[in-house]
């Protein structure tokens, strides 16, 4: 497969109403399938809404065939021959709750990512309500090797770096980013920052980077949309409008990977054994970085 159609489903959600959000997912899946989309990416917590607080335990679902919500999504992916990234609250067997994204293909859950970085500062309270994920893994799809990250995960360079080393050529970022920082610029300060890092990752990892953000409001928070796709040269291929709901479709030409990487062999020359040695040394040393996770 040398190319495929990527769809970014920049939706608004109903807070805590999984049924209503599922219906919207199914409608977007139908619309995207009609437009020939092969992979459709929804925002962070797309089945639940973002600022859940004490709603967390009431909206959790398991990404399995016997879960009623996932049963419908799995069936839709099979019937429409479309791969999906959906955001949900995952409850594990021991009742720990995770902000999660599932990659679904042909009626199966191929991969589940748990958000590894939970912002717990200023307006964010993820760490109060959720357990942090403890792995960052690339996975194989019918369109190549992908990676999925959620929001704060990609504010840390280590997460996309690990995906890159693990073989991801297409990075799919799902997000619920509230706009903040009104200045004389035409977009919120947050949008400026996110667009910079997306472009930087695409350029430095010579990979495709796609970002689906939420739209709409939750109380006073605005979610700025602006979902975007960058190619391995760091060029923006497409961008959804700011703030409004939208389905944005882009064709990814995977041959761009070998064209870019021949002339800019950053992956070939990356010395991850050196990185691993130095991280081991730094972590062991007295002056080493604090590691919050296990």
């Amino acid at each position, binding site marked *: 497969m040398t190319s495929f159609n990527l769809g970014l489903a920049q939706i608004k959600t109903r807070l*805590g109403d999984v049924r209503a959000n599922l219906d919207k997912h199914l409608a977007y899946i139908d619309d995207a399938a009609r437009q020939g989309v092969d992979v459709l990416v929804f925002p962070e917590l797309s089945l639940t809404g973002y600022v859940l*607080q004490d*709603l967390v335990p009431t909206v959790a679902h398991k990404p399995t065939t016997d879960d009623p919500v996932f049963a419908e999504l799995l069936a839709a992916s099979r019937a429409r021959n479309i791969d999906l990234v959906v955001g949900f609250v995952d409850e594990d067997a021991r009742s720990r709750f995770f902000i999660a994204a599932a990659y679904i293909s042909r009626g199966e859950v191929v991969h589940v990512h748990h958000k590894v970085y939970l912002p717990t500062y200023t307006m964010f309270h993820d760490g109060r309500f959720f357990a942090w994920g403890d792995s960052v893994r690339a996975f194989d799809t019918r369109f190549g090797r992908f990676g999925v990250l959620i929001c704060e995960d990609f504010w840390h360079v280590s997460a996309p770096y690990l995906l890159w080393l693990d073989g991801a050529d297409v990075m799919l970022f799902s997000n619920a980013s509230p706009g903040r920082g009104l200045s*004389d*610029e035409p977009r919120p300060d947050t949008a400026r920052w996110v667009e910079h890092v997306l472009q930087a990752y695409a350029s430095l990892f010579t990979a495709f980077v796609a970002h689906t953000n939420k739209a709409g409001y939750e*109380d006073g928070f*605005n979610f700025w949309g602006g979902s975007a796709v960058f190619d391995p040269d760091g060029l923006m291929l497409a961008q959804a409008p700011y703030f409004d709901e939208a389905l944005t479709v882009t064709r990814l030409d995977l041959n761009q990977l070998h064209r870019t990487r021949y002339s800019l062999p950053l992956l070939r020359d990356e010395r991850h054994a050196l990185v691993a040695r130095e991280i081991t040394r730094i972590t062991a040393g007295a002056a080493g970085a604090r590691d919050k996770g296990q």
Partner: protein
Amino acid sequence: MSDPLNINTDLARRLLVGFLHEEITRVGITRAVIGLSGGIDSALSCFLAAEALGPENVLAVRMPYRTSAPESMADAQKVIDQLGVQHLTVEITDMAEPLLKRFPEMSNVRRGNIMARTRMIVLYDQSSAFGGLVVGTSNKTEIMLGYSTLFGDSACALNPIGDLYKTQVRQLSRALGVPASILDKAPSADLWPGQTDEKEMGLTYEGVDRLLYLLVDQRYKPEECIEAGFDAGFVQMVVERIRRNHFKRIMPPIAKVSRRTVGYDFLYLRDWGT
């Protein structure tokens, strides 16, 4: 470097109109009620609400007291005419007077509070009668300084302009076409003749907004503000005002005795389920 208080008015308009539209309609309501004083804050809220919901779905209520400045009524009328919003005038003199007369020694502040709370009663009654949410008109400067009457002018269902400093309210109002006479006059609560905000608080909005921006948005310590050139006494006065008035910015604390208590560990957004 550009002035940090300058805002992109197209973006601000988009954000605030979207906020009003979505946060009102998602609870199944299509209308709004606004107390229109003739000042810039309520004029701006009214412009935003008219754009968000359509002027036919906005009720502007003028609530003069017998000592209110006649220009206030005239300026409010300009907003009504320009936007084509629905409007109503409810004189509050007959409502407030019996209580004011009962305590003839009453200070200006007490009198002003009674007027502000009387207006709140009228607005919430119209909220029910008209079927619209009360849209707030407090800006960030007065919220931070506590220059408002608790359960009076600060009472509302939602507030589009509470994160804009007064100088930013002016920028956005100018961009939206708020009448010039409203843009140009000295801000006043108009609770007694000759009152102006700046005279009463002993500051200028230009100056205090710059200080608040450093203290609040940029998290400067007071001594860093003094190093940045602000007068030490002014900084101290503003810091103290912010602290002393914090009670106006939060819900009343509830004495916690149970395992789960509203305000501490019963946590949901207003938008729960919508």
